[in-house]
């Protein structure tokens, strides 16, 4: 295996384009290192993208944030501006693994690892985040929910790199949240994860909402029918019941060592209600 740590995006792209055999991008490495140890990946080349400055930057333009793909959980957690605007996204990234993992795991890595149970993806989906991708043929924008296509699989080509993730500007009365269910209090993979972002009017009525749902399907899902249950309501009990039902209906989980179909379907609804409440409280302020 060859290891390369290019300093520029162009150099990284040409390494990927010129690779013979399998080339993989190394961001935080918290998944790839485990796969290397367990002998479940054997790439011919690893391209470490952490030294590329555009991938590290966090910028804001008129309330719209762009976060570099290799921003770690620890770094994002220290950025007060992002935390204020997108607390749910920060929560999603910060919930991954331990303090130690937080020092390494990146927002782009968690997205591109494409785990069905990834914590940041439902939050990104809810936030309507756009992924900025570059490849040999230039750049393109891809909605966060369109990056993963199945467990460990993305819609990206081998020679494409996620440079950053952009978040739209939004009104003052907006809030987002991410909650997951795990058996312990830390260190576990989500059994269910729900990200919700919403905006309310002056009367506290929800005008816009997006709901992302993780760990209950082959990939994280955008659930518009769940969002629809919130719009036009003040998240009263009836709306919350409808939300839970819509979420449970969207679940198509499996039985595995982390949870049963029945449990995941039930708890997804519970988590959705709790997440919505937090997002709403943040929006109302």
């Amino acid at each position, binding site marked *: 295996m060859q290891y390369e740590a290019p300093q520029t995006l162009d150099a990284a792209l040409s390494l990927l384009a010129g690779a013979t055999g399998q080339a993989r991008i190394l961001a935080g490495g918290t998944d790839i*290192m485990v796969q290397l*140890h367990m002998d479940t990946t054997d790439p011919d080349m690893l391209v470490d993208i952490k030294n590329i400055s555009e991938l590290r930057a966090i910028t804001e333009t008129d309330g719209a944030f762009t976060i570099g793909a290799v921003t770690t959980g620890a770094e994002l957690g220290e950025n007060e501006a992002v935390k204020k605007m997108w607390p749910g996204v920060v929560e999603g990234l910060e919930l991954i693994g*331990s*303090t130690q993992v937080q020092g390494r795991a990146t927002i782009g890595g968690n997205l591109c690892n494409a785990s069905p149970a990834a914590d940041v993806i439902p939050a990104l989906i809810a936030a309507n985040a756009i992924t900025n991708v570059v490849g040999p043929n230039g750049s393109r924008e891809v909605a966060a929910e369109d990056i993963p296509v199945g467990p460990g699989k993305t819609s990206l080509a081998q020679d494409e790199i996620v440079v950053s993730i952009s978040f739209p500007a939004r009104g003052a009365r907006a809030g987002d949240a991410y909650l997951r269910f795990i058996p312990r209090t830390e260190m576990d993979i989500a059994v269910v994860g729900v990200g919700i972002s919403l905006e309310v009017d002056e009367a506290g009525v929800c005008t816009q909402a997006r709901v992302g749902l993780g760990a209950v399907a082959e990939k994280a899902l955008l659930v518009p029918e769940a969002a629809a249950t919130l719009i036009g309501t003040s998240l009263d009990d009836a709306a919350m019941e409808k939300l839970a039902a819509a979420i449970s209906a969207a679940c198509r989980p499996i039985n595995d060592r982390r949870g049963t179909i029945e449990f995941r379907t039930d708890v997804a609804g519970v988590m959705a209600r709790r997440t919505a409440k937090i997002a709403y409280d943040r929006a109302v302020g």
Partner: protein
Amino acid sequence: MAKQHVTTTVNNDEFEFLCEPKASMLDVLRDELNLTGSKEGCATGDCGACSVVMDGRLVCSCLVLGVEMEGKSIETIEGMADGEKLHPLQQQFLDHAALQCGICTPGVLVAAKALLEKNPDPTETEVRYWLAGNLCRCTGYDKIIRAVMDAAKEMRAA
């Protein structure tokens, strides 16, 4: 598999070594640099026994490639005491009997030190969550948490 040349700093000492690209920083520390204080409990980032600080960030050395040490500054358990003077955390761990078998201790100490440098006055809950990635099977964590809290107090008073 061609080895790569790496220059790095560990506990303020400069090291040069040749590294297999797949080797982890933990492998390098233990097998190349003979710094066996960092322990391998899982090699998958789940136990924290290999915790080190790299350029100011607490990381699991099993989740970092050895070649990524190039140009970095690493702090391990071996650099924690100042000559014969133990770090307050080390002394508090002894005073509190915060270790039984001692295999998790280096990782816990490195992680706790990183916490106190960032947050000199943590609550018990903050200590518990910061150390959630450091598994200890012997102590039930009680004496570890007390030792960290008391070390924080001692360091604030100093």
